[in-house]
């Protein structure tokens, strides 16, 4: 077994042959960050007294939810047979919303540790991430984790894994990120199996930007992987796509805190700071070169992630609108996937239509805005994007149901995804039923092992992205896992359902649904609003309509009593305080026509049930 390295290779003077770049990929919660902890510990870059669980999950929101959102790269020394190696490890997120983080990380590596929970086996994101790694032509090291668990079945899953990757079950490593068992062996194996990076040290520098983060104190911090040549402190660098040049104020490696270095050479992974304030000037996927000796050809970039889900974000207090805009601008610096543009809602005032990678992404952005920027927000019901073709063949792209054209619609197209579901075979019937109900088309079914099945569906994004996963979990007692990726579009019989309060349409509550589901949405929403909107001095009809056709109706009866009729004697102060409280309440009302709607009603009506559950956890 290898000892901790006595001397660590020095950045900028490290021969590529002793560098190993790898990332840890897995299904969500299979233990990537915990395994990374043990690596940080065994390689000595984090002292025992500084150690804490999931060390690399640094954001509050990551720690609270116990999930990784952002990839983190760390340089660690490791000695094998007297040679000290430099390992660059990238811990990646497991949730499907953040797949694009994984793909960027993969492009900075030659190998990947494919981690599988030995009590769970292969799950949908195991497959998805494995395929991504294979597309990037990485060397895969299959590893079973959590072998300390009593429920672990290492032999069974080693076989499953070997079947999947090709190879001998005996080659599958067995570790516990919790106890540390097998982790040193894994580090040795990384050195042995993963190829060293290759590049031309004499060529003009080419470094790939794989992440770009805004830091309040230091401005934009850019993470790079050097392919050819070298980058040195205080020289001028150039962004190959924009030709913009910047001075390098600082360059270094993360270990696991930033450590300035004399530069970065071929195959090295590190960070640089140029003093730019806007991440857009340091675009993920761009290639950095030396200004004095620029490279002729840039490295292949990444595709920008495409937002899948849209929602309106509005400040509870209209006067916070400028603060919300600033907050989004700042957050965008860290989150290239975030897109937004201003919109106005008759009911909610000024806000933004924001595009997200998925519901978790939505929730996290919303929570960060509320927490880090101290904003109170309403988010409208999320929806996907539609292309609507009118009779005159013009096409309207709809990201907000209220933009759905009212005129003659010829065709509505909706985004589709390829979904992969893994589950024990006893649940196949239930899953098929669920997917059919969600307008899915079965594309194939394979047995991964005797009792585990992979089902593939082509299914509308709108059907899968909201409450599908919860349904799937409950129908399979939690055993199924799901992965999906965008895959084309289809024409469908989609309609817009409007909600009217006292005859007045409330744009924030409109939704686009399949015609077969319009009635269900209408009755659900009108019933919900009936509960949420307090009685007014007059009767308030709540209707759901497709165009001018009413499909559901509820009624809020007029309030008859709103007076305190009790003898309070001389305690006028109490009476007045009560009035003040009532008036405070009134201030938190949005007027929809003459109807006073509490903010809470908007929030509650627009909160999907599954996001409520997640907030609880």
């Amino acid at each position, binding site marked *: 077994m290898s000892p901790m390295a006595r001397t660590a290779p020095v950045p900028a003077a490290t021969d590529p042959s002793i560098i190993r770049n790898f990332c840890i990929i897995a299904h969500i919660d299979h233990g990537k960050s915990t395994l990374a902890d043990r690596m940080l510990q065994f390689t000595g870059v984090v002292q025992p007294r500084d150690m804490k669980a999931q060390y690399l999950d640094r954001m509050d929101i990551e720690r609270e939810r116990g999930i990784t959102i952002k990839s983190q790269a760390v340089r660690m020394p490791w000695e094998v047979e007297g040679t000290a190696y430099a390992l660059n490890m990238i811990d990646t997120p497991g949730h499907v919303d953040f797949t694009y983080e994984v793909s960027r990380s993969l492009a900075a590596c030659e190998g990947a540790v494919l981690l599988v929970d030995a009590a769970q086996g292969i799950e949908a994101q195991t497959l998805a991430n494995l395929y991504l790694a294979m597309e990037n032509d990485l060397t895969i090291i299959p590893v079973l984790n959590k072998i300390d668990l009593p429920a672990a079945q290492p032999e069974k899953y080693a076989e499953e894994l070997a079947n999947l990757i090709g190879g001998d079950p005996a080659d599958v490593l067995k570790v516990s990120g919790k106890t540390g068992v097998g982790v040193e062996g894994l580090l040795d194996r990384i050195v042995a199996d993963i190829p060293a990076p290759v590049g031309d040290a004499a060529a003009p520098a080419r470094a790939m930007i794989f992440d770009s983060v805004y830091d309040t104190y230091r401005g934009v911090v850019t993470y790079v992987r050097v392919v050819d040549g070298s980058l040195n402190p205080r020289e001028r660098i150039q962004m190959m796509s924009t030709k913009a040049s910047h001075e390098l104020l600082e360059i270094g490696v993360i270990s696991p805190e930033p450590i300035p270095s004399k530069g970065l050479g071929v195959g090295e992974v590190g960070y640089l700071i140029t003093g730019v304030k806007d991440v857009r000037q340091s675009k993920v996927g761009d290639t950095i070169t030396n200004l004095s000796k620029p490279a002729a050809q840039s490295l292949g970039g990444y595709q920008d992630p495409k937002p899948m889900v849209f929602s309106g974000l509005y400040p509870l207090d209209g006067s916070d609108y400028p603060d919300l805009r600033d907050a989004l601008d700042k957050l965008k610096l860290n989150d290239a996937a975030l897109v937004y543009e201003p919109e106005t809602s008759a009911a909610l005032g000024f806000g933004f239509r924001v595009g997200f990678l998925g519901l978790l992404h939505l929730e996290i952005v919303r929570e960060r805005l509320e927490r880090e920027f101290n904003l109170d927000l309403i988010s409208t019901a999320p929806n996907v994007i539609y292309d609507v073709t009118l009779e005159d063949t013009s096409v309207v792209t709809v990201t907000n149901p209220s933009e759905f054209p009212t005129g003659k619609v010829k065709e509505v197209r909706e985004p589709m995804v390829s979904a992969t579901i893994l589950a024990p075979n006893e649940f196949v019937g239930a899953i098929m039923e669920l997917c059919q109900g969600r307008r899915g088309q079965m594309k194939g079914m394979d047995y991964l092992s005797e009792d585990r099945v992979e089902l593939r569906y082509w299914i509308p994004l709108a059907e899968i992205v909201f409450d599908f996963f919860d349904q799937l979990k409950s129908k399979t007692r939690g055993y199924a896992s799901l992965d999906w990726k965008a895959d084309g579009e289809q024409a469908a019989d989609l309609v817009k359902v409007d909600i009217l309060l006292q005859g007045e349409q409330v744009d924030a509550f409109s939704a686009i649904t399949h015609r077969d589901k319009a009635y269900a949405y209408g009755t659900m929403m009108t019933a919900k609003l009936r509960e949420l909107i307090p009685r007014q*001095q*007059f009767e308030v009809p709540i209707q759901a309509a497709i165009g001018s056709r009413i499909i559901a109706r509820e009624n809020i*009866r007029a*309030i*008859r*009593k*709103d*007076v*305190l*009729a*009790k*003898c*309070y*004697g*001389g*305690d*006028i*102060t*109490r*009476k*007045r*305080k009560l*009035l003040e409280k*009532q*008036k405070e309440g*009134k201030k938190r009302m949005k007027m929809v026509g003459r109807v006073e709607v509490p903010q809470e009603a908007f929030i509650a009506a627009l909160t999907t049930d599954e996001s409520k559950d997640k907030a609880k956890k």
Partner: protein
Amino acid sequence: MPSALPLGDPAPADGVLPPQAAVGAGERGFSLYAHIPFCAVRCGYCDFNTYTATELGGGASQAAYAATAASEVRFAAAALDASGVPRRPMSTVFFGGGTPTILPASDLAAILAAAVDAWGLEPGAEITTEANPDSVTPASLEALAEAGFTRVSFGMQSAVPHVLKVLDRTHSPGRVPEAVRWARDAGLDVSLDLIYGTPGESMADWRASLDAALACDPDHVSAYALIVEDGTKLAAQIRRGEVPETDDDEHAEKYELADAVLAEAGYAWYEVSNWARGAGGDSPEGARYACRHNLAYWNGGDWWGIGPGAHSHVGGVRWWNVKHPTAYAGRLARGESPAAGRETLDAETRHTERVLLGLRLASGLPVADVPVEGRAAVAGLIADGLVEGPAALRGRLVLTLRGRLLADAAVRRLLP
């Protein structure tokens, strides 16, 4: 007095009021409230500051209470003098509770005598005590009248046994007409308190209670919707599902019935929850049976409230005493003000209070008292049928029947 005390500024130990209290005091009337914080049993719905123990410790026993209260009277007179507020004879006195008549009539007489001693009485002053129907006898009522009391307000609440039971009341329905007769014999004016909307009370039950009250031929009726106060036994029973919830729509219907039945019998409303025999309004001629003490509260008059948890108001300064009788007795024994906190109202708050209180009166709120920002709402209130159109044209906002039921909403619309 309801239990929870407001949060306010600290009040000084000498009880001296800020200068604004004295401004214009000579032109205002002066009233006294005396709180008697004892009851035989606590009713399940009640959150008033009252105690069932006869001995509370620290010198706070029922037996010692009259002397303690009288000492606050003397403290009050001195503090007002020191504040430059001229002594004025009392125009109204009100003994409330708790159950004032749980104390011997001689104790109530002694407290009253101390007050008369300090300030004197206006000719024709109204002197009321609250009473539980089963806490009086012909002799005690006789003695109260003898001591100068002019009026008694009985907590009748209902005439229906199963309703009285839910309310935890100890008296039998027959006791009320009897007590009223004794009060009449003693020469006292009589008011009856009713509560409507008790869980399990039908429309017919309520009608029966109204009829029973009218059969007593009272001078005055207060009818309150049952409020489920936090922390009461009733609130717990409802939470546990042992007693059904109260219903605002039903309250509204019962209020409408009360107003119709009372009007029919010759009682006119002069405040949202109060009806008096004969003409309504707080004009001198209409006010013969209206409770002038309560009108003083609602018209922003000056009064000193003695007793634990009692509230006072003099010239835009409001204060309230410590809640517990033991703390109260301790303060007075040390010669300190029993006030727990106070607030000095600024012009805007006084304005708010004027609207809040004035709009509940049949005499109406002068349109001139509505803040300029709220005037625009007046037309809407008339259009929505909450405020009488013709009276508004004459410069006063008077609530309609519908408006009385939505009075709080009307106030919110008038205030910025």
